[in-house]
């Protein structure tokens, strides 16, 4: 393959909507380089902080690992013991970290598009990596999903990818359907049909799980949020019923094409979205996704380091 992509450089990485197909591929290629052992040397000590106003152990830890692997100094932050509890705004918290010398921050917050005000603020100079905003964007998750697919197939164009499960509550579903379409893949949907609303219909058709498993290259499952379903008019949530109707059973897995793969952003409800014994089966890339998450986050942080001319050498 003689794909040439340019090294990515971004002031902030907050939304997949800002990225072109070429940018996405450049991030993937950079992440692959890190996976293959690439290292960078910094011009001076660089400091990062992970401001998780909404908790997420997995994403938080993955960012921290990525930062440490890049040689960044990680400054701790605990929202429960911070001045937030005294009523300090997010903007002031970010500016405080900036004032004490932090260069890059990864932020997660409940509020959709929290980053817009920060980016628009002329006094905020730190690089912002979005670790998830409400029901909005989650670029590092989307990029790690794309990297995992690209590693498997070497391309997106023409691939059939099904997104199955709790579509309406998922930021993964939204950003992935947009990015996959931009990259030339064909998106399909599965799961309870009531979650397949018009916004999804624009991107691809809904098919029963029994048809999807036989045709797809990638089966991407989404976590079912028990509490949300239990509140449904149908009364209590039944894991068994969901699994039988919409989940990946061993029988369904046996009908998947040989080359196809199973993905899930995790944590998996074993026995609900995916049968317990399939979570680590040959087709499953669930732990590979988490593994790739670190390299993708290294690429994201590197793009902001490059933008600030803080990299001395890449090797």
């Amino acid at each position: 393959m003689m794909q040439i992509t340019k090294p990515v450089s971004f002031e902030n990485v907050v939304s997949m909507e800002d990225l072109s197909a070429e940018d996405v591929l450049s991030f993937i290629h950079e992440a692959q380089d890190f996976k293959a052992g690439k290292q960078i040397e910094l011009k001076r000590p660089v400091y990062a902080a992970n401001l998780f106003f909404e908790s997420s152990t997995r994403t938080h830890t993955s960012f921290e690992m990525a930062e440490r692997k890049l040689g960044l100094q990680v400054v701790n932050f605990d929202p429960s013991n911070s001045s937030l509890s005294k009523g300090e705004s997010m903007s002031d918290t970010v500016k405080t970290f900036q004032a004490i010398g932090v260069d890059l921050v990864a932020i997660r917050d409940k509020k959709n598009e929290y980053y817009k005000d920060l980016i628009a603020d002329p006094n905020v100079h730190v690089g912002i990596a979005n670790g998830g905003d409400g029901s909005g964007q989650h670029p590092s998750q989307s990029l790690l999903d794309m990297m995992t697919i690209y590693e498997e197939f070497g391309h997106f164009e023409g691939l059939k990818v099904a997104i199955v499960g709790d579509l309406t509550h998922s930021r993964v579903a939204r950003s992935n359907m947009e990015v996959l379409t931009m990259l030339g893949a064909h998106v399909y949907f599965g799961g309870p049909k009531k979650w397949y609303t018009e916004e999804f219909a624009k991107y691809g058709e809904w098919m029963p799980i029994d048809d999807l498993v036989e045709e797809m290259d990638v089966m991407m499952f989404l976590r079912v949020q028990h509490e949300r379903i239990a509140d449904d008019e149908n009364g209590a949530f039944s894991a068994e019923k969901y699994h039988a109707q919409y989940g990946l059973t061993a029988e369904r897995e046996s009908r998947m094409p040989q080359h196809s793969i199973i993905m899930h952003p995790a944590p998996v409800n074993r026995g609900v979205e995916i049968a317990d014994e399939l979570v680590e089966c040959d087709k499953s890339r669930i732990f590979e996704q988490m593994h790739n998450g670190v390299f993708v986050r290294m690429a994201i942080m590197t793009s902001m380091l490059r933008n600030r001319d803080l990299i001395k050498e890449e090797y």
Partner: protein
Amino acid sequence: MKRIIANGQILDRGQLVKRDILIENGRVAKIAEDISTDGVDEVIDAKGNFVSAGLIDVHVHYRQPGQEQKETVKTGSLAAAHGGFTTVCAMPNVTPAPDSVNNMEALIKLNHTDGAVHIKQYAAITTNRGGDELVDFKALKDAGAFAFSNDGNGIQKSSTMYEAMQQAAKLDMAIVEHVQDDALTYGGVLNGGAAKRLGMKEMPWVSETAQVARDVILAEATGVHYHVCHASSKHTVNVIRAAKQAGINVTAEVSPHHLLLSDANIKEDNAMYKMNPPLRGEDDRQALIEGLLDGTIDMIATDHAPHTKADKDQSIATAAFGITGSETAFSMLYTRFVKTGRFTLAQLVNWLTKQPASVFKMRGAGSLAVGQPADIAIFDLKHEHEIKESDYLSKGKNSPFTGEAVYGDTVMTLVDGDIAYKRS
């Protein structure tokens, strides 16, 4: 006449950069960041659009003489200009075929007087593009033949192909072959999957690949430059790859439709999806893409095959084979492959310019450089537009891509520095 194309973006070592282009006496006189417009007759404002070397298509069918209701040299070449092509190579399946010096000279004259772009003319390999009586290779070369092909028909008899290759090799001319073993087609029209689904006869891949396999061996024996037309099957890609590795002088082209579509796209009995060779499976399509990327396949060529409405307005079982390609190739390929990151713009343009020029040793085509003829295409990569039947300049409206929303509309095409197409 002095023209300047100002404010264009050209490809420079794989990246788009802003350049002005000065055209003098039909040739590119200067390429620089800013060129003064003093003493210039016309300034063409490219408005930040992509300015490319004019595209080359080594495989088009103009139906003149013989079937002017389908296409003429004039309409076909206007369609080429509309698609950004400035050099095309016309296949010999017209009536009478260019199998004699007289026919050849008449055709070259017609191409010259009626052509809106540069047209190179293939000569037939055998009389009437059938049977086993070889043409006079030397005389046809001297008359101006571009290369030799019986396109539309495969050469059935091995000894005929062998002798044709010997003759062509002596003259340093290419044999450009529509690969098809007639006995192995079993009168089929579609690839296996679609044939089964629609209850049609299957044209198996062996009808193509078995003949390619024969021909690369004959090419090895004769040393001829052997070029495979419109590869469609993954098995063909494998044979060509192996032949190249063995040092055999084989090259190949793939059509946009075989890159863009597979037989899974044929949902119903719609003859817009009927072509020869037929659309094959998704795995074949992927193998063709991989073949381009790894250099097994050298170039993209459209196989522009215009037909009348009556010829296509029937069942796949009986309709004519072939679809048009000149006016949809660049925008469809750009939208599906470059916008999605599968190809770079430089790769796509390379397969449509430098590669065909270098494989067929075409002088003065395929590159945007000082001293070269000003064969230039300007494409709008920023705005989406719909492919509309009413925009086709070809007489043939037979395209499965009509109605697609694409990027890469042609803004203007210049041939020898003169405007051959301009978007209205």
